[in-house]
């Protein structure tokens, strides 16, 4: 067993600025929400699109946003220039919805390594 997981890198640390309050006028963006969480980046992406051509086909058949984008609660997937599914894996909350909803099993989905990724305070 190796212990290379001990090296940690903080990508987005907890924000200590004023927390957002729950009011009608104040809708908090996904990014702001995710800044609240403790997160250690695994520099090897734990998510990937197998074949962009399949995402293009999906956009034609199912329309865009595609099912992965409709269900992802953390806006990991963005359809860029009508031809590329851009994967922001560092937004991922590791739920797995995208993998299950993808009609073409076109998402390579693994967990981050060595305890990296999301770390919840409450859960």
């Amino acid at each position: 067993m190796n212990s290379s997981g001990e090296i940690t890198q903080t990508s987005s640390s907890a924000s200590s600025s004023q927390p957002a309050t729950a009011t009608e006028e104040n809708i908090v963006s996904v990014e702001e929400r995710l800044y609240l969480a403790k997160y250690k980046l695994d520099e090897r992406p734990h998510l990937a699109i197998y074949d962009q051509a399949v995402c293009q086909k999906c956009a034609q058949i199912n329309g865009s946003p595609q099912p992965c984008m409709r269900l992802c609660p953390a806006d990991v997937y963005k359809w860029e220039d009508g031809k590329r599914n851009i994967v922001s894996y560092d937004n991922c909350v590791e739920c797995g919805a995208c993998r299950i909803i993808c009609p073409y099993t076109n998402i390579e989905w693994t967990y981050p390594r060595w305890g990296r990724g999301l770390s919840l305070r409450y859960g």
Partner: protein
Amino acid sequence: MPEKFDVVVIGAGPAGAAAAITTAKAGMSTLVLERGDFSGAKNMFGGLVFTKPTAEIIPEFWKTAPMERKIIEYQYWLLSKESHVQVSHRNQKFVKDFNSFTAFRARFDKWFAAQAESSGATLLTRTTATGVLKDSTGKVNGVSTDRGDINANVVITCDGANSLIAKGAGLHREWKPQDMAIAVKETYSLPKDKIEERFNIRGDEGVALMIYGGREEEYAGFVYTNKDTISFGLGAIMSDLAKTKSQNMPMQMLEWLKSHPSVQRLLDGAALREYTAHLIPEGGYNSIPPLYTDGMMVCGDAAMLVNALNWEGTNFAMFSGKFAGQTAIAAKKSGSGFSASRLAGYQAYLEDSFVLKDLKKFRDVPHFIASHKHFLTLYPELMNDLLYKFFEVDGRAKEEHLKEMKKELYSKRGRLGLIKDAIGLYRKVLS
């Protein structure tokens, strides 16, 4: 670390910790693998744990377990656009003898896994299991991880809702979107006295609130009181949500629910502390995968052991973990290995308990709800309309109101539909 363990448990959530406590206490060498920074770091749930089943796993757990509030009142809200109908039950019996309590996974699971360690199990965190190892006969005899391979006589996989290990081992295929709910949850901080005032509670008393209706998409919402925070969220069946062609439906629905005038008051002025999401396996009995194979058992969410009807998952996880542990102990005692036939006792344990009895009893409910969408959409709206008309005083005779109410009921669902629904509900849920 030894070359080989009697038992390797994958995942230190409620199922995994219960399994490890059981086998470690019986003297089996037990290793628990946890992919998070600590046990619970990756786990999320709505917020309720039931007392009695938990006490069967850990007697007098309340002396040390990190609990938030003891629930003395259960509420159901049925929403319409700007109103709600509430059914609630508060009872002094719950004050004297608490039936359930709120908790946070990141704290409770950490504590629970520590119980496994003090029972003699070894906990290895920050280690992700990537698959199982098999011998030449196909029997599972170890686990591959991101830190190397580990050998085991028997593997108990409690790797959660995604169930990647059982899938990788060939026990089942990918879950179906209609069997899975996606849940999003926010944790808000609010001063203790405000929470107590808002929910009419004191000391360590708490309220659990379930919310349905008010929009076209089916969902189930929740508000749970904690010490100085409020858990707020909702879950919806994935295949339903995917029909709406817009970005990030779970968060959009959460925002909508939060802006509902009745709900908004509960969270007013509270500060957002955490946002996250998790899957809930809600397929019920008919979608439970094979629970064991040569050298391996599957527990908790990974085996779809969730009763969505009663919001029960944690207890099912704990009990399935305990049963898997007991099965491993019996197999070791028999001295004839951990083949599938030696692990069949695991399923028997589950069938004899409330876990599979409850799931079997309500086996048709997920399908029934799926084919009766109006239960969670039309009926809440109807009830709100009817009660509004019932309470409204506008100078007309009450008889006219009653006529209108009847007319609305029959026009929106029809007499036959109403009767069919009543019979269906009785047959599937109550009989």
